[in-house]
């Protein structure tokens, strides 16, 4: 068994506006105030320094009991792990000893101190319940900010489908395009609801080159979708519901947007109008890839079904969410994920309808393994996040060729588009635990 290889996620862009920072004030109120007043927690990768709150709680306890003999219990009522609990317990004992506390059996103690490691949504809350003499009861407490974004590690499984993290941010991501790369991406464009941002990797860190606003007159649909199409003569085009933007060709990047119902391209830029190799068995054949574009409903979340120039005799298909191309030796097979949940397999002559229990997102990638082309499709079960799996169509029946991959935080796939070169796809996922959006590159690995 071989573990899937992941690169480290690109850190979140940290440039936040004052306003944005203020949005978090509500939930981080405890954290900010307490950290300013009380704590100096240095939260580093994998190691948390609890000495601040330990010292502070110890001082509060000793202020009540005074130096002397106490009996101490520590109970973990929080999501802290066993190791942290032990570290904190030892730290508290040391801090108390440093303030003149001696630990004795209950019958010898002047005071009983019961410490509970608890928590609320904003912070850890450590509570000491102190009993002295004849029923004297006191409560003291401190709070400690939570470490941010501690994700539960997931077991990786051997996959023929790999996901590589491209970008993470709090605001919705509609699409991500890799503009330049060497060993990995070095320049990317991130499409959001209101802006297109270009980032480049400099000295190992992602820096925002530019952010360009997207002008639109009417409100976006709730389930907003958009697509970035890198181009040869200028950097890229942006397709949004009822809006198309073209980037400028000059060094200073600008974005010119206009209201239009121009169709969205369905074929990856590098493949459109060219030829690709298919594997119809033992031999291989080059076949031309015709361009195909589809009209998008400006106030909804689906394609109208009108195609240009069309697939064979079909210039319209049922309303659909996504489409995937599977070149054959003699024809192009198109799969359309219709809004009614069915998948239409259209070869230019016939329209075969299948109910595959797939999600609404599907796309295809050209690879050097298997049949040469795989369809990537989402699926979901109630209670779990979405997953993506690779399929092939030897004839008209889908054959599963990869294990399903899922996404952090029970992620929901919000977009799945083939990248410009056609050999990988970008999946945009909303992490349901953190609420953040993450873009992954999906690649089919042949060495399974």
């Amino acid at each position: 068994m071989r573990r899937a290889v992941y690169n480290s996620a690109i850190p979140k862009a940290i440039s936040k506006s004052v306003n944005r920072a203020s949005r978090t004030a509500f939930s981080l109120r405890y954290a900010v105030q307490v950290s300013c007043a009380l704590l100096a927690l240095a939260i580093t990768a994998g190691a948390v320094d609890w000495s601040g709150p330990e010292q502070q709680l110890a001082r509060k306890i000793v202020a009540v009991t005074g130096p002397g003999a106490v009996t101490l219990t520590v109970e973990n009522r929080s999501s802290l792990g066993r190791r942290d609990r032990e570290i904190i317990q030892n730290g508290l004992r040391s801090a108390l000893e440093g303030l003149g506390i001696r630990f004795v059996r209950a019958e010898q103690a002047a005071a009983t101190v019961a410490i509970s490691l608890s928590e609320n949504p904003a912070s850890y809350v450590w509570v000491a319940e102190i009993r002295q003499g004849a029923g004297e009861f006191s409560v003291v407490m401190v709070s400690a900010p939570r470490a941010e974004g501690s994700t539960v590690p997931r077991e990786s499984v051997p996959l023929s489908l790999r996901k590589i993290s491209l970008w993470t941010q709090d605001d919705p991501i509609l699409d991500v395009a890799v503009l330049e790369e060497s060993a990995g991406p070095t320049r990317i464009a991130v499409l959001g609801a209101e802006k297109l941002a270009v980032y480049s990797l400099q000295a190992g860190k992602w820096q925002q080159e530019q952010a360009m606003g997207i002008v639109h007159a009417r409100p976006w649909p709730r389930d907003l979708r958009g697509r970035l199409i890198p181009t040869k003569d200028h950097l890229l085009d942006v397709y949004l519901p009822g809006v198309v933007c073209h980037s400028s060709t000059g060094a200073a990047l600008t974005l010119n947007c206009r209201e239009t119902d121009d169709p969205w391209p369905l074929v990856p830029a590098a493949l459109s109008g060219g030829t690709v190799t298919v594997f119809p068995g033992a031999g291989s054949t080059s076949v031309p890839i015709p361009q195909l574009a589809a009209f998008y409903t400006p106030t909804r979340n689906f394609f109208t079904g009108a195609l240009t120039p069309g697939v064979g005799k079909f210039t319209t298909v049922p309303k659909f969410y996504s489409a995937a191309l599977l070149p054959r030796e003699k024809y192009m097979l198109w799969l359309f994920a219709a809004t009614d949940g069915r998948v239409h397999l259209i070869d230019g002559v016939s329209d075969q309808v299948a109910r595959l229990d797939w999600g609404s997102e599907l796309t295809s990638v050209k690879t050097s393994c298997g049949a040469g082309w795989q369809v990537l499709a989402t699926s979901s079960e109630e209670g779990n996040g979405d997953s993506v799996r690779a399929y092939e169509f030897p004839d008209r029946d889908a054959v599963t060729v990869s294990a399903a991959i899922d996404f952090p935080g029970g992620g929901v796939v919000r977009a799945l588009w083939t990248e410009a070169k056609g050999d990988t796809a970008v999946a945009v996922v909303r992490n349901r635990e953190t609420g953040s959006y993450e873009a992954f590159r999906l690649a089919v690995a042949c060495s399974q």
Partner: protein
Amino acid sequence: MRLFDWRSLVVSSMMVGALAVQAETRPQYGGVVHVAMRAAPTSLDPADTTQPDSFARRSLTILMFDTLVTADENVRVQPALATSWQTSQGNQMGDQRWQFRIRRDVKFHDGTPLSAEIAAASLRAANPSWNVSADADSVVIERDRPDSELLAELALPRNAIAKRNPDNTISGTGPFHIVDWQPGKKLALAADENCWRGRPYLDAIEIEMGKSFRDQMTALELGRADLVEVAPEQAHRVSQEGRRLASSDSIELLALLFTRDVASADEKLLRQALALSVERGSIRSVLLQGAGQPTASILPNWMSGYGFVFPTGADLPRSRQAREQVRTIPSWTVGYDGTDPVARLLAERIALNAKDAGLSLQPTSAANADLRLVRIPLASPDPWIALANVAALAGIPAGKDSGSVEDLYASELALLTPQRMIPLFHLPVSYAASATLRNWALRPDGSWTLADAWLGAGKP
């Protein structure tokens, strides 16, 4: 017992998300959703203080109205009708003057553009004690003291921005507009095609009010309702029947509330005896069918982090000891809501516990009672706001927000010390949905939202 409250919050939220988010396909447009509810509000005005706060009322409000800011599922403040905000000194944790820039190109359902003047008037109506004014395209709120809770306050449904018209009609900017309103009975809403957040997926929502839990469940079973309320004590059974059930965190406080302050030392002892006599554990097991959490605190532990400090166990010897110090034992009446199916049983059981301690407690559904069994929907997941609202309901002065958890504890203790209130349970809010209703969501304040809901073809 180890309590993993934060984790349970997350798990609970995930459960809600799991049930509410069906992501196997993109949202589909169209359809009418039918909702049934027990509450029967006679006004849709978010600021109408004559209407009791309820989860149902919050749910209705956010269908039709928007607030300046909103709290997301992680209780983080997000822009809504205000696109940005600033304070005079840049100290967002506690400033007196706040300026909110109003979103452009937003229209009320009657076609009137949203303006700072209308928004300011709306907030003044909801908060007569606030100093709210319009300044160009901004709303300025000036408080008499630094207010670190202002953002959370503005996210409350009761602070939704409403345009109140001279003909007593009301208009909002929310995803749905009013088509038919029969106060206390029925509300029909239609999608706002020009909603600034985008047209909702559903075409319409029809809401039937004043329906008992039983009638609601029948409607769901017969396919006449898509979303209904489930009594906490019924949630386990409904879940076992395979229904799609979603429950919030414990966001409702069930408590005994005395109608007046302690008048004497003897009365103080008797109230203490009563508090010590209530067997919360067995009441939870039997009457509440395991729902909720016994509590002696106002705020649930998941919200405060220290709730376990308040002991919940009955202590009959101490209860009797307190009672025996008093010579004359008065007979108290405990009032309950006659329309609440479990309230009478709870009141009777509490009276039985009190009797064991030598106290005399007479349940009554009459309005006049010495103390009442009350359900208090906690106003917000923000502990300071929740505490302040409970204090206001109970007629007890609330402490000032300093931000520290120790001060929160001290404030809560100060509210409980006068013995006006005996907290009993924190209860979740539960809803059951039809198989076709997708992507509806429970909000952190216990209300539901259908703004992003849609109807699927069949069982997910």
